[in-house]
């Protein structure tokens, strides 16, 4: 069995003056190279969890290991192994793209401090040229970033976040505030990053379509893990396929379904749970004439809504 790169055990966080735990006994493991998504409504404890994992917040109790280092007592060792893309952009718009990148590289001990770009080692300058090409920026990488679009800023942050070759890349709702085209573009880019490197990606998101791409999903609600597994497992565990049936003579259809051991609760159209039978079996056994016939295959969104109920904003 592979050693997990992130191991969280019985994590609890209660903020000062709060009357309930923001994170309440959360445990999970993430394995190297995995794409892991933490999903949940607002206030579920996602940002609190990611803040503890990235060492910017101390937990009330519990244990967090990242790459074999204890996030509470060996924070610096953990920080060297992770890259973080925050909810709010952490690019300094008063500085140029290159200056942002240079500061990151120096803070992570990749290069010694030099006040000017031309004084930086050749290796660094080559990296910046490649990076500018990747972003399609050219010489603009040396100009203040004020005019850069949200999507481009995010990309620059991700490239910067990967400069020190982190084992884990944390993405805290990275596409919040981006338009649909920028979101798509960013995810295509991240997919490429994952294909080229074996970086573990830890994502928090509201967007179910983003989570659906993940290898595993952990759903948090009110500070607790309510479900963990692959997107398919979560859908299969929570929701079964069902038929939607209706007839001009609803009471006849209801009676017939009940006779066949398929009780329905709705007023109609009826949701008929298959309970191990195939849709073919059910339909072929019915005599009442049907006006509606549909097979409902659950989506992750259905599963999610079922789990978190009306808590979503």
């Amino acid at each position, binding site marked *: 069995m592979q050693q997990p790169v992130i191991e969280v055990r019985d994590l609890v966080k209660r*903020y*000062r003056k709060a009357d309930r735990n923001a994170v309440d006994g959360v445990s999970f493991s993430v394995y190297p190279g995995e794409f892991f998504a933490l999903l949940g409504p607002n206030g579920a404890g996602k940002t609190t969890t990611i803040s503890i994992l*990235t*060492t*910017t*917040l*101390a937990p009330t109790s519990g244990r967090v290991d990242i790459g074999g280092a204890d996030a509470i007592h060996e924070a*610096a*060792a953990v*920080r*060297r192994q*992770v890259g*973080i893309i*925050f909810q*709010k*952009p*952490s*690019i*300094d*718009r*008063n*500085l140029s793209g290159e*200056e*942002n990148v240079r*500061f*990151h590289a*120096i*803070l*992570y*001990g990749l*290069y*010694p*401090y030099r*006040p000017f770009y031309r004084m930086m080692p050749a290796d660094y300058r080559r990296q910046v040229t490649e990076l500018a090409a990747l972003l399609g920026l050219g010489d603009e990488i040396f100009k*203040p970033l004020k005019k850069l679009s949200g999507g481009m800023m995010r990309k620059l942050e991700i490239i910067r976040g990967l400069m020190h070759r982190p084992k884990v890349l944390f993405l805290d709702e990275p596409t919040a505030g981006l338009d649909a085209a920028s979101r798509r573009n960013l995810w295509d880019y991240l997919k490429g990053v994952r294909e080229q490197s074996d970086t573990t990606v830890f994502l928090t998101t509201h967007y179910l379509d983003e989570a659906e791409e993940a290898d595993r999903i952990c759903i948090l609600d009110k500070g607790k893990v309510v479900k963990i597994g692959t997107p398919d497992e979560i859908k299969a565990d929570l929701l079964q396929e069902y038929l939607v049936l209706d007839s001009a003579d609803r009471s006849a259809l209801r009676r017939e379904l009940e006779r066949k051991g398929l009780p329905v609760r709705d007023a109609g159209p009826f949701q008929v749970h298959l309970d191990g039978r195939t849709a073919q079996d059910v339909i072929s056994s019915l005599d009442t004439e049907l006006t509606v016939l549909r097979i409902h295959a659950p989506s992750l969104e259905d599963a999610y809504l079922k789990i978190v109920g009306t808590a979503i904003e």
Partner: protein
Amino acid sequence: MSDVSAILTVASRDVLKLGRDRTRLAFSIVFPLIFIGLMGGTLQGNLGRAAGFNFIGFIFTGVLGMTLFQSAAQGLISLIEDREQDFSQEMFVSPISRYSIVFGKILGESVVSLVQAVPAFGLALLLKVPLTLPIFALMLPAAVLACLLGAGFGVLAMSLLNSQRAAQQIFPFLMFPQFFLAGIFNPIKILPWYLAPFSLLSPLRYPVDLFRGILYQGRPEYSKIVLFDPLTNLAVMAAMFAVFLVIGTALFVRQETNR
């Protein structure tokens, strides 16, 4: 080595930002102009003869101390805001220590404050404040110390004020009384008994008095203006800086993760 590089990086960012912040640069030129030029000129015209000393030099040293101290303190306090926004998030999750961030910020904001003091010196020369080369040579290191004390004060204030809103509301209350207790614009040689202890507690009083000690050294008005000899001021500043820095940094580092 990497910590030294990190400190220099954090510091250089502040200096770079000042160079690109035209509003702040313009303000730093206008601010001393208003106080030294207008206030110094007015006071000199009306009270100079009665007081028996040159008010422009008095206001210049006061405003210089205030500008350096306040700018450095405010720069440190900006860490509260920065922590929740922009690039500073980056600093807080990088593998450098919180101490390096604080030291880098102190260094950077001190340089920024010193740059802002340049117009004050220029104006003082124009207004014929007796700034000789030896006086200037002594004032320069004193100005560095004033910045460091201000930054130290900022670290302590920042560690006690945990939100940007609290900082905006409370910081003026920490600074404003000091303008009078430290004698920026008003002589405080004679103070009522109930104000004297507060004046002694005001950190801003010491760098301002140090500047005056240097400027008026050997002049007849020295005894009318200067409160303590420069060495006493230096000793108090060193002690205050050490206390502010140790307590402030410790509280800040603790508060940072124990929310």
